[in-house]
């Protein structure tokens, strides 16, 4: 059983597989009646390319700071209790979790909304970059002029 009574907010960049139990436990709060989670997993194909592996790089200290800032903004917007955000860097094999977010709140509506908002903002402002390795080459997502869908620059 997960202890869900005394979590500590978590904003991490890790080279190891993400431990979902720790992420959920981090948002444990006696005033919470709901915990919403989001997991992003590495996908086998993108823009018609057959992806063989994905690699992520971060400005680690800035990424953690941006995650904390996003959590503060979310807490001002919704009556949520705690937030945990973890992103994996280095090579992430296909099908594994690259990002995990958990939000605890008194009720489910704000937990879901804040969690959705946090993953959208993470993809816009947290300094992490994805490099796709596919048959025949590699590409940094977001670096191309114009940018592909999903690599929006608006913040």
């Amino acid at each position, binding site marked *: 059983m997960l202890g869900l009574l005394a979590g500590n907010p978590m904003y991490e960049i890790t080279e190891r597989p993400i431990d979902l139990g720790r992420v959920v436990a981090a948002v444990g709060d006696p005033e919470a009646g709901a915990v919403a989670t989001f997991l*992003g*997993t*590495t*996908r086998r194909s993108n823009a018609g390319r057959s992806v063989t592996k994905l690699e*992520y*790089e*971060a*400005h680690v*200290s*800035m*990424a953690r*700071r*941006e995650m904390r800032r996003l959590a503060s903004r979310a807490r001002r917007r919704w009556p949520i209790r705690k937030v945990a955000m973890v*992103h994996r860097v280095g090579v992430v094999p296909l099908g594994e979790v*690259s*990002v995990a977010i958990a939000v605890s709140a008194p009720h489910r509506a704000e937990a879901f909304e804040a969690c959705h908002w946090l*993953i959208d903002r*993470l*993809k*816009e*402002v*947290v*300094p*992490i*970059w*994805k*490099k796709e390795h596919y048959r025949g080459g590699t590409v*940094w*997502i*977001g*670096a191309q*002029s114009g*940018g592909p869908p*999903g*690599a*929006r*620059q608006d*913040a």
Partner: protein
Amino acid sequence: MARVRLRYFATLREQLGEGDERTVRAGTTVGAVWERVLSDRPALRRLRVRFAVNETYVDCDRVLQDGDELAVFPPVSGGC
């Protein structure tokens, strides 16, 4: 004069290295430093970049202070 630490990430790191330290005149902006880098590497001009000073996003008219870290990177693409 101001001593500034440049850091590059993602495709910029692969093309320019991890970064370097350089001394700039007082009043030098982020944009001016990046222009100097581009003057040696014009092919990078086609990339969209963002700047952060001391881990906070800034515009290119931000004036650099002694001890600043200037990070230059492409639009972010984390997540899934």
